[in-house]
């Protein structure tokens, strides 16, 4: 029997079609390599191009601006390294992302960055911004504060002002103007990249794609890191290859993954969930659909378009770090699950993530009212007792199956 290679990482029977997916394997390996060593990629890119690298914090920095200015926009990632020096700068009751970022700064890991941009309103990130600026006196640390109240009469105007100030500060830093034409071109490239990644999402949802949750994470996360043109070429090639060699995806309980804003869930957790007999058919993770959900209008005033994008993406995929009284994250999730034909949801909450902790009871109550099963897993930067979590996930899957069978 010929069985095509299983991209979920499960054991595969090798047969004559093996060569068909060599290209897919190569691309996935490249994406995984960049996703797991973002600063290494940035160093190599800088060495090759001689151009600056601008690190940014999640979740609303418009990479298009830095790209149009000729820099590599790199969304800074939580490191898998244990936190050591960082303990002397932030308390242990902060989220893993902020502690890891401060730790990386204290260890000198961020020294290859030419500038760092903060742009969000989360109290722990503000603490990290201060600590990082103190650790990197020779690195330009730019802060632009986006309005987080999303449905006020002045939200759009203030957002335009903020993006305009950011553009001006970038121009000053780069010592060159960012022309509208260049910005439009960057927007088109970024839109194309998002559209391709969304196509992967559509295919996963429909069952036409057999990528594991970890592989999907690598595809999106590497987009936050890599040169956008290079990444886009890789995703185009990946799509072409998987369309040429379609394979049915494995069977399992269809689940939606929710939560985890600033940092990517650890691959071992994703693998564990799928290893318990689930398949992930959709998500609203930042290192997932949240990041690619919305395109920027490629015409007209590009700064205004970025501000509109900022507002539209919160209406499209509501985020607990913003306040918007006229949209409901819980309703969004229930609709997403219905569309994805998911049978339940696993919520991944980064420990100490205050916005998520505030909103979680709304989600919990909405899901209980509708009778949609969900399981909350709190994740930590430090190692977690995976066996204990596995038992919980297995039990959850069993309960959902029995409930559906009843």
């Amino acid at each position, binding site marked *: 029997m010929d069985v095509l290679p299983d991209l979920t990482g499960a054991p595969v029977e090798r047969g004559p079609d093996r060569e068909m997916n060599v290209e897919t394997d190569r691309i996935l390996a490249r994406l995984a390599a960049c996703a797991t060593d973002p600063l290494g990629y940035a160093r190599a890119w800088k060495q090759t191009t001689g151009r600056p690298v601008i690190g940014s914090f999640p979740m609303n920095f418009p990479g298009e601006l830095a790209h149009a200015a000729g820099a590599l926009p790199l969304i800074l990632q939580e490191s898998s390294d244990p936190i050591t020096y960082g303990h002397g700068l932030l308390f242990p009751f902060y989220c893993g992302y902020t502690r890891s970022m401060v730790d990386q700064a204290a260890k000198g890991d961020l020294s290859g960055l030419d500038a760092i941009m903060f742009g969000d309103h989360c109290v722990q990130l503000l603490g990290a911004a*201060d600590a990082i600026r103190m650790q990197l006196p020779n690195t330009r640390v730019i802060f632009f504060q986006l309005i987080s109240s999303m449905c006020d009469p002045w939200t759009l105007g203030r957002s335009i002002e903020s993006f305009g100030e950011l553009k001006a500060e970038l121009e000053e830093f780069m010592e060159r103007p960012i022309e509208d034409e260049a910005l439009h071109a960057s927007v088109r490239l970024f839109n194309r990249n998002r559209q391709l990644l969304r196509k992967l999402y559509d295919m996963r949802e429909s069952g036409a794609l057999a990528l594991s949750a970890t592989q999907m994470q690598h595809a999106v996360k590497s987009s936050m890191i890599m040169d956008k043109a290079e990444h886009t070429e890789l995703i185009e090639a990946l799509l072409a290859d998987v369309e040429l060699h379609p394979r049915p995806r494995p069977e399992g309980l269809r689940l939606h993954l929710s939560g985890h804003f600033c940092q990517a869930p650890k691959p071992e957790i994703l693998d564990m969930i799928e290893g318990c007999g689930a398949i992930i058919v959709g998500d609203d993770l930042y290192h997932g659909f949240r990041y690619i959900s919305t395109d920027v209008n490629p015409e007209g005033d590009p700064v205004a378009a970025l501000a509109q994008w900022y507002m539209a993406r919160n209406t499209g995929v509501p985020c607990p770090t913003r306040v918007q*009284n006229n949209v409901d994250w819980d309703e969004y999730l229930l609709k997403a699950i219905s569309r994805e034909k998911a049978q339940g949801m696993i919520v991944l909450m980064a420990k100490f993530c205050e916005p998520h902790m505030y909103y979680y009871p709304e989600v919990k109550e909405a899901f209980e009212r509708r009778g949609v099963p969900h399981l909350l897993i709190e994740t930590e930067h430090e190692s977690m007792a995976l066996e204990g979590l596995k038992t919980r996930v297995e039990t959850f899957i069993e309960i959902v199956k029995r409930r559906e069978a009843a």
Partner: protein
Amino acid sequence: MNVAVAKPNRANKLKSTRIAGGLVNDYWNMVWRAKAEGKLICWYEGSAINPFLQAADICWVHGEAYSAMLAARHQEGPAQQAAEDRGYMKELCSYARTHLGCAISNQRNRNDTDTGVSNAPDDSDLASKLPPPDMIISAYAYCSTGQQWDEMTSRVFGKKIPIFNVSIPWIWGSKKDARYLHGREWEESSKYVARQLMDMVKFIEERTGKPYPWDRLREMMGQVKRASELRLEAMDMCTARPAPASFFDWVVSIAPINNLPVGPEIVSYFQTVRDEVAARVGAGEGAVPKEKYRLFFDGIMNWNKVGWLAEKFAAYDAAVVVGRYTHMAFWQEPDLIKASDPVLGMAQNYLICPNNHSAPILIDLIMDLCRKYEVDGMVIHASRTCRAFTNPQFLIADAATKRLGIQTSMFEGDVTDESFYKDELLNSRVEAMLESIDARRMVAA
């Protein structure tokens, strides 16, 4: 064998601050009566927008103040339990958790109509007794929790309560012209907040259906300004040795300047406090009878532990003379308030809450206070669920050691959740710091 145990030295608290207790009780009684008296009620957090509300005859409820009051009376348990029952986790801001617990208790009482028993809250159930809001105004500096807390309050009430958001930007201060109360960023942020406050007044007018009484606001801000000047004058007198009042006296005096009704009473209160402090300076009377050490307190208050901590430090002969929470907040720049046209000055005072400047500016201000009050050490309260305060604390400790050469000591506690407080840790760490101060003095001698 009987062993005589020496009684520890007691804190010599200001007598005049007892008046604050009465004013606080009167205020909360007014709040609890407000619904029956047909008043509109506004819930708000963070910035002291209460004069805007009071002027318009709206009853104001400051969320932190309510949570702090519950904790100070050791009655925070039911509210925190109600919040936990709904799924709010213990790591969330305990001010918010406690206040959201009140909202949940309140909703539960209003909606639980099929029990066949009265839903009216028991008079001693202070969580449920808090009257529900007719409007919510969010005007929180620095901490993202503020807006999210208000948003969740709105959702607990089914999004039926009108809500207004004032966004107060953080002062990052990276430009060359950036200094405390100075620079383009400061000027632009001031105007931005002032513009929003004008829109907030329109929101208030829509709720009351009446033109906004600007004359009343102007009169009240004149009183706030005077009360603030008296408070700061009294604080300044605590550079004397021994210090006539302590950080804990100023903690007790927060409510009168922050959220009690503005009027001649608060001016009179701070005049009385100021006069008592002046009299103590004249008499050489200290807040700690045998002042041996002078300390800076960094961090927000442990509201369950105000008296407890005052006695604890007094027992060590340690006068906590100054703090970030008390000396860098609550209308602390009265000169910015122009009583005839107060909005810009109000906006600016909201912008200078003790956390809303980034670390370089904040640390300079703290170092100046440490020098001014000639402190020997710094005790740092790492409040577990208040990251707004804990954010720069390692940087502050580092600066205190390197720039001033003083000892620092950290302990973990919380604003209103007593379970995070570890008494023995505080004891051993403070004792170690004081011993270290002694050792340095011996070397210097």
